[in-house]
């Protein structure tokens, strides 16, 4: 058989291969430039105790999760049961960033769906959200003892992401 006839076939298979892989990739998942960088500083009011503030400096020395949520966020409901489980297991502190929400509906939402958070802080104008490059709530960051962002989950946490990526990473970071 003429070898030249194989060239279009090879090109076709290569293109089909790329397109096939592309079917399972989420174009909304844009790699964050913040991974490996220090987590942006913030000092924010706490949702349940507005008279006290919580800042990134208070969390130094421990591994923690930052979960961006809002009462208006539909896909937050999707991941919430997993977070509640994780909160009960007390493996790692989960700080909720109540993003562009109002305290009333925010608290109500936690009452209805369960509150997995060590505490939630209020980012009413979304400014801290911008500093963290948030563009699709929910988002979850894994932050290490030195305050460096190690992982970012864009969109709801899935059981698979939790078991295979987030928890192993948290355990590894807690050991170091």
């Amino acid at each position, binding site marked *: 058989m003429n070898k030249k006839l194989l060239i279009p076939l090879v090109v076709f298979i290569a293109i089909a291969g790329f397109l096939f892989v592309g079917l399972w990739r989420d174009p909304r998942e844009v790699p964050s*430039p913040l991974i490996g960088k220090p987590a942006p500083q913030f000092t924010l009011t706490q949702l349940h105790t507005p008279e006290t503030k919580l800042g990134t400096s208070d969390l130094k020395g421990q591994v923690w999760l930052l979960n961006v949520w809002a009462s208006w966020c539909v896909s937050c409901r999707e991941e919430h049961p997993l977070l509640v489980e994780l909160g009960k297991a007390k493996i790692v502190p989960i700080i909720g960033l109540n993003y562009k929400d109002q305290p009333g509906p925010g608290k109500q939402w936690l009452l209805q769906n369960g509150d997995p958070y060590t505490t939630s802080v209020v980012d009413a104008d979304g400014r801290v959200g*911008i500093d963290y490059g948030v563009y699709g709530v929910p988002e979850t960051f894994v932050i290490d003892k030195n305050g460096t962002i190690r992982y970012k989950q864009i969109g709801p946490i899935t059981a698979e992401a939790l078991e295979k990526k987030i928890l192993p990473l948290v355990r590894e970071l807690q050991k170091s």
Partner: protein
Amino acid sequence: MRFLAALAVPLLAALATLAPLPAAADAVPTVTDPVAQGRAVKLSEKLRCLVCQNQSIADSNAELASDLRGQIREQIAAGKSDDQIVEYMVNRYGDFVLYDPPFKPTTILLWLGPLLLVIGGFFVLIRNLRRRPAAEPTLTAEEQQRAARLLAGDNGKTNQ
């Protein structure tokens, strides 16, 4: 009727205060300086909105885009340069926010890929052209006689 009208006025007034138009808040220009406003528009046209990825921050109605437009205006007012503002966005959202991505190792294929395809195409074209037989086709004696007859106008039919 009069009673209804009297009732309607405070009701309408109450409604108006209850439902401020959310779009109106966004449309109020916080920068009155036309030069700064022009810069803000130019910058927001260069940046991609990550929520609706095929629109610029200037075009998008997404809330994040509106927040980022606000950030741009605020930073211009604070005296930041265009480069500093673009850097601010890239630090948070990555090169993906730029419609004109920088030339660096991770974007080399993006920038040079089309050029490589064109060069490859020319290479194949030149090779094929060279290989094509350039010599004139040779005719048999019989064909030559027929050609001569045709050229002389004697093809057995009347010319028109």
